[in-house]
């Protein structure tokens, strides 16, 4: 392995930015006048050292034919990359130049709770004109990110990458490394987007089933969906109708380039900083080896495509060389658009850009009826059963739903989409709950919506194994269950049928160092990336207990379930929420309280 100082490549990593010659020419504050006069720059500067200043300010942004208001940190979108060193102490100063409160959450970093940056949970927020300083020891290494936790600011550009270099040798050796921050830009204000979501069902979806579509749906399928008052094409709430998909702030037309020399091992640190978009990542012609998930090293897994949920990070290593150039494709999960960059062996080298693939459809499994989908919905049929991906048939527990459903499948006549008797008593049944998963199987083995039937290797959670055994081996002392609930039509989202406003005085409580197995059940037809602040939890994915992968965010597939083991060893109050920004904004938010080691309440 050629030892190369990885840092020197990062500037080039921002692609065209290096060519602009602006990077680092002036400190960020000195460019203030430019920021106010024009657009935020695309791409990211790198900041490191013990004292880092971040200035949040109103800005504007343009890419392709879209232009609109934005929030930029230090004048760029994304904001600067924070390059930290494990074992050091860092002092981060957040200057608020907005006319409203702001905040920064250090997503994935283990920090004292009062520095976690969630207004109303960990601190009061940063008032206009004020500076908030977070000083903490850096206890870990890996790829993370930061973003605003105030209102809808994150959508407007208030996010950036964090890379923490390990104190010891990095088990991942690479000749170059690049950051890939995935996000969206909309000319529409985030509040307008939320308003449209609230008022118009399917407002942004222009891939709906129609009389003239060519979806593999039978008339019977279509009637069944209509009967349920739901759409098989409801994959993402916001599509390319509002979004231009960005890689390091670069739209598809902005020619983002990652340079390489043939044969080099290139490490790509993917961060999904999008507000609402799951991305399918592939580099046609180039296999990717996953080496890290959510900042934690994993046993290498080679794939050709993987889905990254909102707020997740994946590090991959690629060895380009056979071709002059490769196209890095970040296709939105609903396949309404894509973000594009090029891995190029020489500036300007380009590879073909693959066309958008046909949009996927939800399956029986996505309705919470795993195992009942025996080919009734075209190509999606078997994929819903999830056998091919190492999934188990576990959870084919028809006992609870009677067997008439199975028998009545032909006409779906016996189908019960909202059998509230299946819910635990602490789930509130009301207008905010439009569906109950009849058979919420563990869908850890699912590669994500639309990837079950692609003709190449994909990633799923069952393929993740912690690279090194972790210390925790205790059997959880208790289980708990949390239901993800919602109403797509009213655009209400919640945990256990209760919006945060209904439970703001009833946090989810853990004793200090308590080990709990948490089961999340998705009683909706959307995939939700669920994020717990301040901790890593271990996915219960079939790996040995000490190799269960550590994550800060887990995707709950529609109508399915997932379990994680949590050791609650970070005292304080922490946010726990769906990381789809508008779902959180609609109520899918809770506080997790971990008691102090001395037994006192946090």
């Amino acid at each position, binding site marked *: 392995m050629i030892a190369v100082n990885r840092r020197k490549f990062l500037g080039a990593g921002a692609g065209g930015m290096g060519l602009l010659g602006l990077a680092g020419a002036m400190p960020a504050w000195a460019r203030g006048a430019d920021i106010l006069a024009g657009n935020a720059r695309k791409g990211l500067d790198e900041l490191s050292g013990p004292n880092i200043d971040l200035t949040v300010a109103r800005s504007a942004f343009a890419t392709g034919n879209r232009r609109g208001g934005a929030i930029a940190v230090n004048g760029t979108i994304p904001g600067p990359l924070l390059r930290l060193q494990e074992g050091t102490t860092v002092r981060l100063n957040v200057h608020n130049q907005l006319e409203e409160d702001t905040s920064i959450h250090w997503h994935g970093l283990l920090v004292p709770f009062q520095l976690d940056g969630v207004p*109303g949970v960990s601190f009061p927020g940063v008032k206009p004109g004020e500076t908030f300083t977070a000083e903490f020891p850096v206890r870990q290494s890996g790829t993370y990110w930061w973003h605003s936790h105030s209102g809808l600011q994150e959508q407007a550009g208030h996010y950036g990458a964090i890379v923490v270099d390990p104190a010891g040798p990095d088990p991942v050796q690479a000749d170059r490394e690049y950051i890939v921050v995935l996000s969206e830009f909309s000319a529409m204000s985030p509040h307008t987007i939320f308003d449209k979501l609230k008022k118009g069902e399917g407002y942004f979806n222009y891939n709906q089933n129609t009389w003239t579509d060519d979806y593999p749906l039978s008339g019977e399928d279509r009637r069944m969906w209509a009967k349920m008052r739901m759409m098989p094409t409801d994959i993402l709430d916001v599509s390319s109708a509002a979004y231009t998909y960005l890689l390091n702030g670069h739209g598809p037309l902005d020619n983002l380039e990652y340079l390489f020399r043939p044969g080099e091992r290139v490490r790509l640190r993917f961060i999904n900083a999008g507000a609402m978009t799951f991305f399918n990542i592939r580099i046609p012609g180039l296999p990717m080896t996953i080496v890290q998930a959510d900042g934690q090293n994993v046993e290498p897994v080679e794939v050709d495509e993987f889905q990254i949920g909102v707020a997740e990070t994946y590090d991959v290593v690629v060895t380009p060389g056979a071709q002059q150039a490769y196209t890095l494709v970040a296709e939105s999960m609903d396949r309404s658009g894509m973000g594009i960059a090029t891995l190029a062996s020489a500036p300007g080298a380009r590879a073909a850009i693959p066309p958008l693939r046909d949009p996927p459809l939800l399956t029986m499994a996505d309705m919470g009826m795993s195992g009942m989908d025996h080919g009734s919905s075209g190509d999606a049929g078997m994929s819903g059963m999830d*056998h091919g991906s190492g999934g188990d*048939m*576990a959870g084919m527990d028809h006992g609870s739903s009677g067997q008439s459903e199975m028998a009545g499948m032909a006409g779906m006549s016996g189908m019960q989409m909202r059998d509230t008797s299946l819910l635990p008593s602490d789930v509130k049944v009301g207008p905010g709950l439009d569906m109950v998963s009849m058979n919420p199987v563990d869908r850890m083995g699912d590669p994500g919506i639309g990837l079950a039937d692609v003709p190449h290797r994909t990633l799923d959670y069952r393929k993740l194994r912690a690279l090194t055994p972790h210390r925790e081996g205790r059997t959880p002392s208790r289980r708990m269950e949390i239901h993800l609930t919602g109403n797509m*039509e009213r655009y209400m989202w919640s945990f256990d049928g209760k*919006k945060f406003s209904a439970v703001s005085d009833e946090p989810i409580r853990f*004793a200090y160092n308590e080990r709990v197995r948490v089961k999340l059940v998705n009683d909706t037809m959307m995939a939700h990336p669920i994020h717990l602040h301040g901790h890593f939890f271990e996915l219960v994915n079939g790996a*040995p207990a000490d190799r269960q992968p550590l994550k800060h965010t887990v995707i709950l597939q529609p109508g399915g379930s997932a379990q994680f083991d949590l050791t609650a060893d970070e005292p304080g109050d922490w946010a726990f929420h769906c990381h789809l920004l508008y779902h959180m904004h609609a109520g899918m938010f809770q506080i997790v309280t971990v008691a102090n080691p001395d037994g006192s309440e946090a």
Partner: protein
Amino acid sequence: MKIRIASLLASVAAGSVLASPAAAQHARHSPAEPQQSAEAQADAKTKCEQEADRHRAMGHPVADGACEPAAQSEAAMDHSEMDHMAMDHGSMPQGKPAEGGMDQSQMNHGEMGQAEAASSSMDHGQMDHSQMNHGRTPSQDMQGMDHSAMQMGSDADIPLLPPPPEAGSGPARAAVAIWGEEAMNEARRELVRETDGGMRFWFQGDRLEYRAREGKEGYLWDIQGYYGGDIDKFWFKSEGEGSFGEPIEDAEVQALWSRAIAPFFDFQAGVRQDLTGPERTHAVIGIQGIAPYQFEVDVAAFVSNKGDVTARFEGELDQRITQRLILQPRAEIALSAQDIPELGIGAGLDRIEAGLRLRYEFAREFAPYVGVSQEWRIGQSADFARAAGEDPSVTNYVVGLRFWF
């Protein structure tokens, strides 16, 4: 197939034993304490019996006494020889030996006819499911199988419990000690307000149209809107029509309290004021929402200040021809409990209106349309119409605009 499964079983068994750290797999089988306590055994037995009952309920043969603690030598267990290796060992290394005292080999999983039982725990990625014919054989065995219990068997060892007392109680207030009560309370209130879905104003011109019929040209409006949050809203509606050059024929406004009572339905109650004809004010109760098959429905009953009881049913259905071209059949039925001669309404079925509108959504919020609307007065109402020199059956050709903001 059988041979293949058997060899897979063997490899899974061997693999899982070799791969799992012994310490983890035997977390409860402490080497210093090779014998399980009686209590643990009793506990395990109970669980086993529950499990066995479940299997019996599914029609699986489970021998009576299958849950009796086996000989101590079995409790110590030679895993490599155990039949239940067919179960999901992915979960076993997590230190939750589901096997304690249970002899699952007696549960006869192997005899379940289709061998799917055994395969459930295995890596399906390696299996050829096409041979399993799920499409055609939803056999009793398949249906009844509770695979989840097998895979998650270990979960049964972890009790579903509320937090222990050490977890504390009451609101989350850790940050108060650091940032002060006042600042945190304010921030918390703001967070609650912000994540509550918010209050919003919606205004829809559902039908704003020009109507051409034999000999006359007219107009119609049908608007509605609300202000409110997710559950409670102030809802208003107004409808009216007339012919150009004449006084307005019919016009009314409604002011309603609207409350979400079900995922797809709101209950509405309030008042309706008629703006034309004889002075009339009505009390209104109704239901508005989306019925199965995506019908938008609005049903309301009215009691006027003269004591007259009437009712209306409206239904619309959006049929997408393309992403922007939408065909909307619409029907409205008016009923009356009594004759109301001064309004030209007869008891029973009063009026039926059926329409078909084709709109193009330049934006979701802005959609011009063309269409046709047919109205029939029925029974006594028709007689009233004829008496007034009107045709009880009228066809309107319409051009209009649907918009909302």
